[in-house]
Each structure stands twice: as structure tokens, then as C-alpha cells.
């Protein structure tokens, strides 16, 4: 039968089992255990529970050895690229387009057409195009060049 000391010191049993008592406290508690079969049995039960939990833990970890890193890193990369592009996008929307921008773009288009041969008398291949430079701080542009057939595509995004 558990005596009053056992009931008053129930938590001590856990602390003893978990190795959380000082050496002196542990010695004292050990002498109690030697005289109390019920507490000694509880200690054995705790040990059995630990064994079963450890076995379950091994079972749960089986097949979980695959690194989560590839998935985590790709999500972090995505977040980083979004963070990098976000301020630019925001600025593009916040900036009001100056009145002369339309005119400037038209002029740029005319230049492209001019260099592509539309206004040249000299015979050039129909898809020939020469661009001196592109400069537009408020607009994004993208250039695609296919080296195999010399095709170049330029996107200017408002």
C-alpha cells in the first residue's frame, strides 16, 4: 500500500526517475524505494512506458530520413526573389507616368523601325535590325536573342 509519504512525494518519484534529484535527495529517495514495493513497481512501470515510447519513436522515424531541405530552400528562394522584385514593382505603380513618356516611346519605336530598314533605301534583309541603345529607368525591358538565326525580340513593358 502507498503510505502518506508516497502521496506527498509522488512528483519526487518522477524527478528520481528522470535523474533530476541531487545525489543526496536521490539517496534518500532510494532508501524509500527499498521499503516501498508499490513505488518500486511504479518505477518499473515508468521504465516500461519509456521503452514503449522509445519503440514508437523509432517506428515514427522510419521512412522520415529524407531531408526537408530541398522543399524548404525552394520556398525560401521564392520568398527571396519576391522580396527582391517587390520594391521595383511597387515603384513602377507608384510613379505617375510623365506626359512626355508616350512621346518618348513613340520616338523609340520610330527609331527601331528606322534602323530596321523601313526608311532606308539600301537593301537589307527584311528582318534586319540594329539598336544603338535602350534606356528607360521607369520601364522594364526584356531582350531575347536567338544566336542560331539571329532573331532578336525586345519587349518594353509599361
Amino acid at each position, binding site marked *: 500500500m502507498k503510505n502518506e509519504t508516497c502521496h506527498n512525494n509522488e512528483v519526487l518519484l518522477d524527478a528520481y526517475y528522470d535523474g*533530476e534529484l541531487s545525489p543526496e535527495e536521490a539517496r534518500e529517495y532510494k532508501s524509500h524505494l527499498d521499503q516501498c514495493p508499490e513505488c518500486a513497481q511504479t518505477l518499473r512501470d515508468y521504465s516500461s512506458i519509456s521503452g514503449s515510447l522509445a519503440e514508437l519513436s523509432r517506428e515514427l522515424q522510419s521512412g522520415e530520413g529524407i531531408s*526537408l531541405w530541398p522543399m*524548404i530552400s525552394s520556398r*525560401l528562394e521564392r520568398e527571396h526573389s519576391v522580396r527582391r522584385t517587390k520594391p521595383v514593382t511597387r515603384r513602377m505603380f507608384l510613379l505617375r507616368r510623365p506626359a512626355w513618356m508616350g512621346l518618348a516611346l513613340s520616338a523609340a519605336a520610330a527609331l527601331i523601325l528606322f534602323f530596321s530598314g523601313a526608311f532606308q533605301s539600301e537593301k537589307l534583309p527584311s528582318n534586319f535590325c540594329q539598336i544603338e541603345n535602350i534606356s528607360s529607368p521607369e520601364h522594364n525591358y526584356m531582350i531575347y536573342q536567338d544566336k542560331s538565326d539571329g532573331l532578336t525580340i525586345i519587349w518594353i513593358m509599361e
Partner: protein
Amino acid sequence: MPKEDRDLVRSCLEGNIDDFQGLVEKYQQRIYLVVYGIILNREQARDLTQEVFLKAYRSLGKFKGNAQFYTWLYRIAFNLSLDAKRKIANRVQVEYDDSLESDNHENYYRTRISRPDQMALRKELYEKIIKSLGALSDEQRTAIILREWEGRSYDEISKIMNCSTGTVMSRLHYAREKLKKEIIPYL
């Protein structure tokens, strides 16, 4: 904090995402177990383990070097898991992990336990343990898992769970008493 962790954290803060890999691979299994212990579902525990590391990475700037990195990481795992569990509880009542019945696990039982009757008994025991863990309060379950699966001291558990060591002792005691009643008859 072990030197390796500190170096990796510093490097991550300098923008080297790849250095976070070392921390993920070092702690992912242990975080998974803690998360599983609270959620009791493998699929959700896997997803949530990822979320723990993502949240940790985003919050690295808030990490104070005077705490252990894993204590800080476990706290994130503990808080995220409790939040997730509450959200899940609002949707469905999770009884226990039915993934134990998957083919994958059947294979595991077969390789580790040769006799079919032993295999069935083992499976029944695991299900019983999971069910018993599920019957504990979130706090009792977390305390017992941090102690039994992670071998954390009372002091470390109290820091992770943000409570006193006395509360940790009490939670562990009541958790063990309940588990004893439920599991011992099956052993």
C-alpha cells in the same frame, strides 16, 4: 549554444540561405517528433515541420544568442503545433494516426517482427500508445515527449513551454499516471 549552430545562424543572417541547410538537417527529425507528439498525424507533422523551419528562418533576426538554438527552435515548434492543432480541432476530431495502417508501415512491422501474431500485437500497442497520448492535454503530452523522446531536462522543458519547473514536474507526473493506466495492461 554549440559553436556550429552559432556559426550557421550568423551566416544565415548574412544572407547565406544555404547555411540554413545544416540546421534543418540537424534538427528536422527531432522537430518532427515533437510536432508529431502534439499533432499525432504524420502527414500534418511533416508539413508543419517545414513551417517550423521557415518561421525560424524568417525570425532568425529575433534569435538571442544567449538561449540555446534548439530551445528556441522547439519553442517555435511547440507554439506552431498548438496553433495548428487548435485549427484542426475546429474542423475535425483527430483520434489517432491512421497512417499506421499504411503499406509502408506494414512492411516495417514485417521486417522487424517476423511472426504475424506478434506483428498484430505490436501494431495494436502502437495504436494504443498514440491514442493514450492523444488523450493527454497538449501540455502534458508536450512535456512527456520532450522528456521521453528528446531527453530534455526539466529546466529546458520549462523554457520551451514557458512555465516553471514545478509545472513541468506536475505535467510529467500526471501524464505518466494516465499512460500507466492505459498502456501497462497491454505490456
